[in-house]
């Protein structure tokens, strides 16, 4: 005989599971729409630039992922969120000697400093992930690598300098699609956790 309390708990779990399922289905439809638009714009860009211009032949030798994720543990559920490197220290050190109001002629050089700090941050994260890679000792290699990493940082530049607006729109569509998949992944994790708890509660009856 199932107690009323246990039955209510199982019902609550099932209701929240169905709520997440509804959200999952809506997000999938949203993802389909975004990807459809992305493919359409990619096709249009390929039509104007040429089929080889927007293809795997243009992928560079090195790529740096700018869409990084961080995993957090909350109670017994894992949560995935977008990782943004902390650049506040770099920013303060770059602007240490300058006042809060920058003169116009110094903005460009400050931006270059900021960009090079960002490249350094990304390089550090790549180096820390692959600690056994010992090929960064030569200074010239570092500079060459930094140039390639700068290119790798902006994927739109792989396909040329003056790219059509359709390619930029495709990039926006797929970036939104990535945000949707991130949200989807978190929904799936929550559903898996509810499934686990539900099975546990059911087996204890």
């Amino acid at each position, binding site marked *: 005989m199932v107690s009323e309390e246990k039955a209510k708990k199982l019902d609550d779990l*099932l209701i929240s*599971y169905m709520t997440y*399922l509804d959200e*999952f*289905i809506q997000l*999938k439809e949203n*993802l*389909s729409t975004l990807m*459809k638009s*992305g*493919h359409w714009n*990619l*096709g249009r860009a390929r039509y104007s630039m040429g089929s080889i211009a*927007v*293809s*795997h032949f243009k*992928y*560079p030798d*090195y*790529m*740096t*992922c*700018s*869409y*990084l*994720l*961080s*995993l*957090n*543990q*909350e*109670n017994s559920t*894992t949560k*995935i969120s977008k*990782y943004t490197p902390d650049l506040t220290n770099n920013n303060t050190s770059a602007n240490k000697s300058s006042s809060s109001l920058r003169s116009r002629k110094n903005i460009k050089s400050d931006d270059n400093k900021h960009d090079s700090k960002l490249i350094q941050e990304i390089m550090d*994260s*790549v180096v*820390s*992930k*692959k600690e056994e*890679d010992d*090929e960064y000792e030569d200074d010239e290699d570092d500079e060459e690598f930094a140039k390639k990493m700068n290119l790798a940082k902006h*994927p*739109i530049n792989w396909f040329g300098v003056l790219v059509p607006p359709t*390619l930029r729109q*495709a*990039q926006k569509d*797929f*970036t939104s*699609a*990535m945000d949707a*998949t*991130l949200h*989807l*992944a978190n929904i*799936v*994790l929550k*559903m*898996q956790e509810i*499934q686990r708890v539900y099975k546990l509660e059911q087996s204890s009856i």
Partner: protein
Amino acid sequence: MAEKRVQDNALVAVIADEDTITGFLLAGVGHKDKKRQENFLLVDNKTSQARIEQAFRDFTTKREDIAIVLISQKIADDIRHLLNDYDKVIPTILEIPSKDHPYDPSKDSIMSKVKRMTGTE
């Protein structure tokens, strides 16, 4: 309840056709280091099923820096046996539509798990 950070700098892996890969690479998902280790597999009509299975196993078991694996549903159908046996939490597997094959919820592994849980299967 406080959140505990488990891992930073995790990547998204993609197993899909050229257009889908190009799109997600434009979004900044691609990663290729000096050892030519990539976080994506471009699948065309010459790619063998063994290659796809190997890539799936690499992304889900060998590599520890992948948090999400995106796989086109058409390609997922070819390695359905691996997806049905997959029971890890991280990396999370998500089936995505491709240019030529729209998303079919009846084939999604998540939906089949839902059916099993609700007893409709």
